[in-house]
């Protein structure tokens, strides 16, 4: 048997603990960038010491304690140490005071929540929010983020640097949002997590290796958030939506990478554990009707159908109807048209499609073509699939539309 390799041990524990360490430090030094630097210092110290001293018994606590000492040194240099201790309710300043560490640990959950609200602050661009969240909450390296988004490392580095500078320049406090802003700020956090998930799930860019990692990262962030903010139905709604979508991962592509549509998937390959978790998360959001809860409810209808013909399309159509009011968008309308086509006949679905304006969106002619084909209007259907094939940027999608068009000759 091999002994633990100290370098690997440092990297592993760092990945597992860095978010909590950065979060605890950020509360103390009130600066996300400085907090990350100090936490990195602790990592460097561990990389120097562990190969000589061996891996400590409690490596996570070791890193936290070392980082805390760096923070105390930094605060002392800034002359803010005394002020901080008073804030923590301590009378006598003592750098080695174990109670100070305890005081930090007590707030760890809230610290993480504060940090995620900060990295997802609406003052930052969407790209910056995503990059900073993956870096500070996910513990991903700049290189990993760059690989996932198919951009250069320097681009990701700039996004992160700019984000930290914006937070500092605009004096964004690292705190939970005030009640008046809570809903909007939570929506921003959920949006960032779902964007990360979708980047992995929809595979618009990035190499194959990083895509599942992004989905798992989003699931992990969502699970953390669900523990930190258990009273928020939309958090559970997002969690349910992601778990239910992720449950289909193994079934949604053929071995050669061709996408397999929901209706053609081998449902025995769906991940039962994720379905169970998704349905449980949805049950926790019961009675709420936010956009994520509604989308998760729709995904749950599919998850509950053991065979495609068991799908409760009437319920799905009704849920989309509600969703068009809660979160109106032409894409939601298009999905509603599909559901209505299944539930109430293709003619009814086509009526909705004809009312939509989605320029350049290949799925619009594709859905129209599908409904026309079901109505027996083959020549019109074929033209729609040909239009869809000409519009899409995605080669696999184009092949799918061309095949549908060819089958209608």
């Amino acid at each position, binding site marked *: 048997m091999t002994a633990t390799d100290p370098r690997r041990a440092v990297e592993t524990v760092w990945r597992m603990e860095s978010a909590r360490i950065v979060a605890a430090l950020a509360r103390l030094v009130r600066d996300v960038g400085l907090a990350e630097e100090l936490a990195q210092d602790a990592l460097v110290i561990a990389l120097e010491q562990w190969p000589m001293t061996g891996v400590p018994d409690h490596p996570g606590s070791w890193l936290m304690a070392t980082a805390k000492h760096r923070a105390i040194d930094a605060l002392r240099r800034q002359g803010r140490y005394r002020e901080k201790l008073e804030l923590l309710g301590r009378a006598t300043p003592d750098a080695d005071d174990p109670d100070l560490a305890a005081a930090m640990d007590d707030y760890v959950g809230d610290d993480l929540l504060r940090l995620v609200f900060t990295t997802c602050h609406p003052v930052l661009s969407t790209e910056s929010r995503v990059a900073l969240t993956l870096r500070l909450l996910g513990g991903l390296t700049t290189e990993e983020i760059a690989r996932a988004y198919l951009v250069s490392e320097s681009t990701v580095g700039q996004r992160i640097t700019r984000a930290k500078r914006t937070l500092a320049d605009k004096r964004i406090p690292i705190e939970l949002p005030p009640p008046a802003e809570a809903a909007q700020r939570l929506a921003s956090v959920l949006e960032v997590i779902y964007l990360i998930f979708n980047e992995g799930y929809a595979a618009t860019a990035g190499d194959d290796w990083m895509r*599942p990692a992004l989905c*798992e990262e989003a699931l992990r962030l969502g699970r953390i958030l669900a523990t*930190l903010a258990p009273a928020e139905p939309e958090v559970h709604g997002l969690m349910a939506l992601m778990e239910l979508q992720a449950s289909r991962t193994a079934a949604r592509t053929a071995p050669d990478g061709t996408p397999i549509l929901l209706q053609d998937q081998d449902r025995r390959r769906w991940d039962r554990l994720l379905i169970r978790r998704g349905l449980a998360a949805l049950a926790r959001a019961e009675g709420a009707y936010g956009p994520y809860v509604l989308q998760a409810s729709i995904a749950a209808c599919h998850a509950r159908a053991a065979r495609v013909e068991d799908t409760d399309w009437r319920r799905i159509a009704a849920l989309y109807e509600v969703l068009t009011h809660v979160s109106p968008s032409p894409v939601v309308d298009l999905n509603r048209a599909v559901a209505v086509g299944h539930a109430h006949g293709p003619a009814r679905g086509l009526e909705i499609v004809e009312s939509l304006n989605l320029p350049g969106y290949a799925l619009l002619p594709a859905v129209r073509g599908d409904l026309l084909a079901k109505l027996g209007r083959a020549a019109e259907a074929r033209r729609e699939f040909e239009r869809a094939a000409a519009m899409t940027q995605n080669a696999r999608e184009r092949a799918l539309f061309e095949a549908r068009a060819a089958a209608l000759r």
Partner: protein
Amino acid sequence: MRYLILLKATRPAGPPPPDLMEAIMALGGEATASGALLDTAGLAPSAAGARVNVYGGKLSVTDGPFAEAKETISYALYEVRSKDEAVEWASRFMSLHRDLWEGWQGESEVLKVMGSEDFAGPA
């Protein structure tokens, strides 16, 4: 990626120390809050279970207890980013047993659950 961790040990006489149970609950809470722990439960003594075998073309059922020196005490299912992370979680639970139950001995098997990454073509 997912890992199944099976904790195996001899069942010592007497119940586990309350401090250990408390620490296990706290660490389990932490593992859940960090998004890593998907599922876990303790397992009853094998006297409550059975084995279903196929040997020499014959199916047979044997009631517990099984004759092994060690029993499987609990299982835990993790979703983590590397084997090292799974090993680290297992180590934390084992450390608790070492620190809070004198004389306790056992092992954790860290087993990878097959996932999409195991079916991918050569990188």
